């Protein structure tokens, strides 16, 4: 019996992404051994990596470390170590994996991770971040700065919100000068912001290619490939080069009419993080039905650029603040999140929505019941709600998940066929 065609994307960009991420880990290893460059821990959502560029500093992303471990099926050990220390089963498993790594001296690549010179908690919507980074600072005996970013209750951030965040960014600059002994290079910072704007333009164009039929890539499973460089290299010429090459590769696929399968049968929007410990298995559950994700909310945690927002090199501090306030998915209110999904469903021409609830993440998961109601009843779009976890392998029920996905596509297929025969 022929195996279902593997739908994984294995183009040039996949390898280049691997190389770039390894290079980043090498740099962190160097920092661990030599003390240079200076490093700062950051959260992915609403990150101000451009600021670090002003010091030639390297970011440490504990969330990336955690997901790398989960994808390699290595997350359970550190999670258990953290639980033995007293972390609750209900705690976010990213936190437990990260803390467990400190306790057990585990790193994703086997190389060293430096003690961060600054633990910079860019608090955007997720209050777990604060406790996580407080614990990190204590464990690593590093300096902690909690950058308080007001949650988006209204449509736009207020002047007071912007000023508040900008003031804190400048405090961080002063702090980093003191800690690193390096002077903040404003021009280098502005240049990083310029690179970011270019990356965002390219990333946005790539995302828009998924509006085509067939889409040249999967905006959920393949987007993961592109998201690492987005966080680490956004403010750099290397990042610009990478995304330029990625856009070229995707455009070539569009020009050749190449999708993921011989026939793109279903187009989906997916909400929520993936189950990293079962990434491949989860992907295959959709590949079986020749379903391509054309848009995802998870791929906008590092910035929501496809609707036109960009960093502004003429106002670097303000635009960094604006990104942290308004242009990442976790700091946006529920109505804005629903609106984002509605636009994806309509403008990217999707057949249905998959909501993947993850036990760890209250931020993503809160409101998803209401979201499901809104999409099924108000928008009339078929929606599937499934549950597992993004980091902890113990919360994935494969048979149950597969069953629900199969049932969803059976119904979707039935209605598509029905529409066809009644046409």
């Amino acid at each position, binding site marked *: *019996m*022929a*195996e*279902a065609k593997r739908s994984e994307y294995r183009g040039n960009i996949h390898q280049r992404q691997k190389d770039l991420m390894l290079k980043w880990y090498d740099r962190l290893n160097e920092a661990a051994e030599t003390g240079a460059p200076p490093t700062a821990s950051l959260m992915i959502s609403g990150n101000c990596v451009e600021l670090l560029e002003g010091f030639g500093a390297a970011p440490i992303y504990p969330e990336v470390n955690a997901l790398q471990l989960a994808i390699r099926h290595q997350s359970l050990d550190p999670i258990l170590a953290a639980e033995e220390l007293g972390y609750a089963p209900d705690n976010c498993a990213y936190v437990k994996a990260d803390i467990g790594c400190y306790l057990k001296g585990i790193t994703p690549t086997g190389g060293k991770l430096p003690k961060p010179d600054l633990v910079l908690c860019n608090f955007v919507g997720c209050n777990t971040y604060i406790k996580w980074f407080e614990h990190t600072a204590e464990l690593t005996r590093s300096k902690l700065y909690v950058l308080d970013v007001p949650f988006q209750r209204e449509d736009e951030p207020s002047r007071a919100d912007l000023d508040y965040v900008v003031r804190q960014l400048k405090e961080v600059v002063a702090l980093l000068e003191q800690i690193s002994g390096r002077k903040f290079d404003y021009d280098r910072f502005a240049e990083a912001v310029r690179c970011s704007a270019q990356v965002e333009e390219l990333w946005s164009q790539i995302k828009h290619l998924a509006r085509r039929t067939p889409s040249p890539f999967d905006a959920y499973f393949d987007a993961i490939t592109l998201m690492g460089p987005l966080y680490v290299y956004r403010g750099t010429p290397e990042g610009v080069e990478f995304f330029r090459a990625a856009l070229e590769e995707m455009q070539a696929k569009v020009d050749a009419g190449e999708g993921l399968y011989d026939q793109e*049968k279903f187009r989906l929007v997916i909400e929520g993080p993936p189950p990293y410990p079962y990434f491949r298995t989860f992907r*295959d559950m959709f590949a*079986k*039905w020749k379903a391509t994700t054309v848009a995802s909310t998870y791929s906008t945690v590092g910035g929501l650029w496809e609707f036109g927002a960009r960093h502004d090199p003429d106002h670097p501090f303000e635009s960094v603040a604006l990104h942290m306030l308004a242009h990442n998915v976790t700091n946006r209110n529920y109505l804005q999140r629903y609106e984002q999904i509605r636009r994806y469903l309509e403008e990217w021409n999707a057949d249905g929505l998959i909501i993947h609830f993850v036990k760890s993440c209250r931020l993503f998961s809160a409101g998803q*019941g209401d979201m*499901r109601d809104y999409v*099924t*009843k108000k928008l009339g779009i*078929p*929606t599937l*709600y499934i*549950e597992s976890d993004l980091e902890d392998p113990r*919360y994935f*029920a494969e*048979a*149950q998940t*597969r*069953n*629900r996905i*199969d*049932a969803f596509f*059976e*119904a979707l*297929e*039935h*209605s598509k*066929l*029905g529409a066809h025969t009644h046409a």
Partner: protein
Amino acid sequence: MRIAAGVDVGSTQTKAVVMTENGGREILARALVDTGANVRKAADNAFLAVCQAAGIHAPEVGFVVGTGYGRYNISFGNAQMTEISCHARGAHFVCPTTRTVIDMGGQDSKAISLGKDGQVLDFVMNDKCAAGTGRFLANAAEVMGISLDDIGPLSLRATRAVKMATVCTVFVESDILSYLAQGKKPEDILGGVHLAIAKRTLSLARRIAIEPDITLTGGVARNSGMVYALEEILGTKLQVSPDSQFMGAIGAAVFALEKLDQSFEFSAWRPEHAAGSRH
């Protein structure tokens, strides 16, 4: 005359139905066996039993659709479909005015919202927890030393149903023992047990649009106490068929007939979906 079959391999029991298309669609026979540890054998036995009951030979069956958790273990299956699709189809066949299906199985509960042609519009299932499923009833019956067939009718005699403190299928035992020690009457305890499950099931079902007619499917539908409790809370009568346990197999058989009919091309019919292939 076209003959097709549906086989529903559930966690506790395996059901098989043979249907024919001869002018109209008609159920020829049904069979039921315990699933046990050997799923493949259970499927074989159920299929053979239903063919015998129908008075036909196995090769006369033109198409077999398997459903239930064990559907990929049916060696003679031509295609597999989820029990969600099959319960919906089955309920619609038995009661064409069905718009909502509530299925209560051994360890699964689900609610399915149907369109007027019987197509699945939406569904919701219990996750990570067997509270409000047949297992809850089975555990309650066991701890009280009463047979599963008797707990339903006994619960109907409750005059002061107790309030269950838990919906946990495991912890219900200690709850019941505690009530027995307090001298509560078995019928009142059982009344409380049935109400607790009904509430749990309905709070799950309310996540989709509940619209009449509501058809109850699954083995638990044979429990008159459960039907009563659900109707009490819903405030409406439920459609309950004597075939409630066979609903999944009936739906599978209907899909199988449609395949024979060539009226429906599903990707489920592709060879790579046949039993034995790995996904």
